[in-house]
């Protein structure tokens, strides 16, 4: 979404326009929900976290500082909401098992569809099996577009630790994919 349009929608949200809020969040819906789903590893928890994020964003939109990127602000709220829920539900130990595939790849080729599904399943398993800190950093970097500095501020870890987590996460993914002959 363009910055000017985004600022306009934020301003309208501050005035209490519900439709502007819907439009604003809709732009990040897929990104945000995907992130929450992979972080929590559970559809119900992801939806709860999504709902909680919406409530918090609508409540605090007046306090949003235009100096920060809206996506970073939104994801930091979502991340905190998800972590709270994970702590509450104590579902950390559960690995991610996708319920039903909801893929709609653009290609109509059934072979490529099958490959994408398989790859998705493999990646979901690998990410679900990552240690929490590594998963957090990897997913934040991939979905939110936050810088490592922002991630370090959000997670309260030193920058070098965050970079280390990213390094180990990608290394593990790479190795697991190699094992499965995906790369």
């Amino acid at each position: 979404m363009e910055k000017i349009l985004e600022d306009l929608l934020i301003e309208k949200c501050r005035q209490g326009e519900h439709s502007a809020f819907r439009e604003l969040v809709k732009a990040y819906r897929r990104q945000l929900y995907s992130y929450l789903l992979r972080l929590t590893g559970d559809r119900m928890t992801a939806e709860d976290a999504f709902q909680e994020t919406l409530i918090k964003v609508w409540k605090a939109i007046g306090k949003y500082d235009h100096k920060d990127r809206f996506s970073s602000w939104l994801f930091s709220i979502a991340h905190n909401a998800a972590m709270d829920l994970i702590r509450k539900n104590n579902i950390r130990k559960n690995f991610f098992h996708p319920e039903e595939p909801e893929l709609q790849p653009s290609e109509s080729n059934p072979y490529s569809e099958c490959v994408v599904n398989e790859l998705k399943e493999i990646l979901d398993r690998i990410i679900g099996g990552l240690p929490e800190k590594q998963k957090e950093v990897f997913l934040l970097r991939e979905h939110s577009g936050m810088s490592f500095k922002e991630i370090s501020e959000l997670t309260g870890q030193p920058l070098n630790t965050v970079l280390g987590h990213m390094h180990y996460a990608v290394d593990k993914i790479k190795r697991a994919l190699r094992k499965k002959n995906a790369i």
Partner: protein
Amino acid sequence: MQSKLICEEFERKLWQFMDREMPDVEIVFWERHLHGCTICSTRLQEAGETLSLYETIPMEDLEEETFNRMVSKAVKKNRFNRAVSKLLDSLFETTSAGFIRKFAFGGLAFSAVVIILFFMYKPENLHPGKTPSPVEVRSSPPAESKGNSIAAAGNNDDASGLGTGWGKSEVVPVKYEWNDKSTSSAIRQMKRSITGIRIKKERYIRLDGFTLQAIALRRKMQWLTADIDKSAM
């Protein structure tokens, strides 16, 4: 040796280099290093490939209906909060309307405090109509509540260890105002010792046979024994 150290440093900085989260001078330095180092360039390439592979998998999405419901819920939930904050904002206006609102709000708050304080410290005897009827302690059980009143305790004198003379007189005209605070707390304590349940607040205590028995058994309590002695005399 030096090259190995530089490669190790690149491994640490790889992600910042990828995202260009470093000063331009540093970027130029690493680009130069990458031209001559196959290990680091392979490392960078592999990292890039892994990430691009992750990016190929499609993202999950919420259903439109679910999303709309969530947005409506979020907006609805904060409607009250927004109204309150709007009111508070208006209170801090410097205009004359703001002053009137401030005055009205102050008056309302003061009234609320007075009402709360009145109910907190309300003397219970202010409402004589609401007080429960005084309890009559009998030495023999009334016909309709045999074995279930204080008299029952009186009849079981020997077993309960009550003093002599308790069950001898016909009627002991003991009357007690149960809405007395000290009595209520005494009964609460007794009930707690009997049932093991802590009763936090009980303004008017309904005295059933069980409690009355307990009262009789606990004749150590001064308010009861004093009355009993008085009546026995």
